[in-house]
């Protein structure tokens, strides 16, 4: 039986530990998470994105600021993240305010991406109809010529940080029961609540 969740453990320490374990057991993409945002018309929308960094300041992911999620986050900067590691029968839920990361942080991350991905970030008009795949390929070719060396980060491409207000850890226990531990920001620390089943 898994150990019960101990509220004395720091939430980021526990998250790091769970992500490490998921990296060993998940078939692929252990850092995949569901990002839920809200449209201005109060309709939730969700998609999978990849976590690219986390620390006590928050959970970071990157993408096109002009995509649908970018527009929704600009209008309502609150989001929910959900990690679901089926192989471990665990979930982590995060809720909080969203901010755009600083230029230096985005530049540093962009520089670590594969060249094809860097060029792709320049080439695609996200979430807008594109008539022909061939047009995208043509643009990629032109960008190859334009940036023979380092590819600069496009202005529309950056990261978001979810600054957690709430982090919930959920694990399956034997006999159809669940062990849930909720951390809620409380001043400079965290207040915890145990929920089960």
């Amino acid at each position, binding site marked *: 039986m898994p150990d019960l969740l101990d509220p004395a453990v720091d939430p980021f320490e526990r998250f790091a530990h769970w992500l490490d374990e998921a990296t060993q057991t998940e078939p*692929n993409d252990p850092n995949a998470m569901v990002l*839920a945002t809200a449209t201005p018309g109060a309709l939730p929308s*969700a998609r*999978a994105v990849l976590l690219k960094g986390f620390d006590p300041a928050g959970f970071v992911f990157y993408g096109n600021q002009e*995509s649908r999620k970018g527009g929704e986050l600009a209008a309502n900067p609150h989001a929910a993240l959900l990690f679901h590691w*089926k192989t471990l029968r665990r979930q982590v839920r995060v809720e909080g305010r969203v901010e755009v990361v600083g230029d230096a942080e985005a530049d540093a991350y962009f520089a670590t991406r594969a060249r094809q991905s860097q060029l792709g970030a320049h080439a695609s008009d*996200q979430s807008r109809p594109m008539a022909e795949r061939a047009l995208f390929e043509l643009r990629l070719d032109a960008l190859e010529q334009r940036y023979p060396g380092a590819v600069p980060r496009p202005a529309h491409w950056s990261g978001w940080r979810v600054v957690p207000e709430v982090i919930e850890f959920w694990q399956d226990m034997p006999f159809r029961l669940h062990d849930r531990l909720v951390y809620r920001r409380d001043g400079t620390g965290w207040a915890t609540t145990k929920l089960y089943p």
Partner: protein
Amino acid sequence: MQELPLQPRQRMVPRGDQPGDPFARFAAWLAEAAGTEPNDPNAMALSTLGRDGFPASRIVLLQRADARGFVFYGSSRSRKTAELAENSRAALLVHWKTQRRQIRVTGQVTGVARAELDAFFAAWPRRAQLGARIAEQPKLLADAAAYEARLAALAARWPGVVPRPAHWRGWCLAPESIEFWQTLPFHQHERLIYRRDRDGWRAVRSPNENAEA
């Protein structure tokens, strides 16, 4: 990290073909995922909005999907019950990592009738029904022996039909849009978006296939 190789796959809608029925496509993808996912191929994220307009997500299990909608169950004591009562618009996301596929559904949620909930619960094996009654009690059991003792006590209490736990609820999300997304070799993606209109389902053509959602 272990990386599964991506098998060569067909495009969803080869040039010149019709996009086809979204529910048939959903069923076909679910069947493929059932063969590759480690467990719970029917797991999906349910996203709702709180009264403050802030989103929340949690995993629920899909029980049925057809033209009437996507059905899932849960407890009336849960936060999702309160949020859906306030704002019945919701989003579902099925993410099959092993398939590198996602399906996104948005729409309006209504409650499932008690008769349908009863019928669903009645179709469960007796042991699972008794287990659901145990799970009602917010009390963690020490070990397998304690669990079996509780099962035996409840079995004695209900020698015949086990009644459905009173806090059980079901919801049906009637879809307004259904989006299919898959990874193709060489880091390409393919998206197919269906929207409901007066005459049924219309596929949105020529999306930017590498777009972020």
